[in-house]
């Protein structure tokens, strides 16, 4: 398998897990690492991609979705986790199921020092907020971890997060000549 095919395959595995679980609303703030998944979600029948401008709105949106009988999933980057903290009280207090899929920045090979603070503390912030976290470091980890996170959230009325490691997602490339291949 080529590198590109492998990179597409684990993203497609997330999409397949969404479909199999009956996820109807996918709320997201864009990330380069989720680009393919977001595009597939927009194109899918029976799945609504909900674009929000800040991650806390996605948490509230998916609580509303569940109130209305639809399952949801949240896509964001690790820097967005900081924006969710107070709104996670809605999910926690009311036991709204909430599976989150988070592409990591600020770790493996990070060029941008401003990403370090939130990336290094993402998991701790989530765990302090009562979210159960699972990390994926390799493409082989993804499919099963995503399914577990969705099932646990919906069977247990709880909040789960899959942290997709920067080593897996790929490192954003910077150069003086402009953004690299992995530009946002």
């Amino acid at each position, binding site marked *: 398998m080529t590198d590109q095919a492998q990179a597409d395959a684990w993203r497609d595995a997330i999409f397949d897990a969404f479909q199999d679980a009956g996820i*109807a*609303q996918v*709320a997201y703030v864009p990330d380069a690492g989720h680009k393919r998944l977001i595009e597939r979600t927009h194109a899918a029948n029976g799945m*609504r991609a*909900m*674009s*929000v*401008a*800040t991650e*806390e*709105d*996605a*948490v*509230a*949106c*998916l*609580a*509303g*979705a*569940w*109130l*209305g*009988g*639809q399952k*949801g999933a949240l896509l964001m980057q690790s820097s967005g986790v900081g924006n969710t903290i*107070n*709104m996670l*009280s*809605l999910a926690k*207090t*009311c*036991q*709204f199921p909430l599976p989150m899929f988070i592409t990591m920045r600020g770790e493996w090979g990070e060029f941008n020092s401003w990403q370090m603070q939130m990336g290094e503390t993402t998991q701790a912030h989530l765990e302090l907020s009562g979210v159960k976290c699972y990390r994926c470091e390799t493409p082989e980890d993804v499919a099963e971890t995503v399914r577990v996170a969705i099932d646990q959230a919906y069977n247990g009325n709880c909040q789960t997060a899959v942290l997709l490691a920067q080593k897996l997602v790929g490192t954003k490339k910077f150069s003086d000549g402009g953004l690299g291949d992995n530009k946002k």
Partner: protein
Amino acid sequence: MSTIETKPDGLIDRRTFVDHLVANRGDDLCIVAGLGSPCYDLKAAGDHPLNFYLYGAMGGAVPMAMGLAAAQPEKRVMALTGDGEVLMGLTGLAAAGAEGLENLIVVVLDNERYGETGQQTTHTARGVNLAQTAIGLGYRAVRDIKTPDEAAELHDWIKTVQGPACAVVKISAEAAGMALPPQDGVYLKHRFRERLLGVQPR
């Protein structure tokens, strides 16, 4: 259905307005109320299983109503909120405008104050106009309400308007007192889903 009253300052009384707004509502209307006085107003108008009251999560009422409206296109879904919450969650107001849901209505009770924290003024007391904001955010129908007669029209408007719709109602800053709805979020969730979907909690 009560008559919408005004307070000594000449502005709309929030309690009689909300009571008029949701009178004889039936099960076609789902309401997410933002924390603080919108929850008390809605509770005072009569508790209902299809009311979801936020005791926290400030900024969440509109995006939560958006997710609910997307899941339930056959129902009318209303976010009943205040100027303070909308200003904290302007991104949610924008997302719901952009999403274009025909069954979503946002009603903003604008008293130009943070009522829960000591009546400090909000930006709407200093020139920020939320009705104009809603127009700019893509709401298809926007009402800028200042009088009891205009406010009385909203009772029918919320049942027929093509959304996303937003009504900003200037109300008196005079506090109406607390009318506390149930605070247990799990209970509120279960009773809402049971009434709407017929599902029992597992």
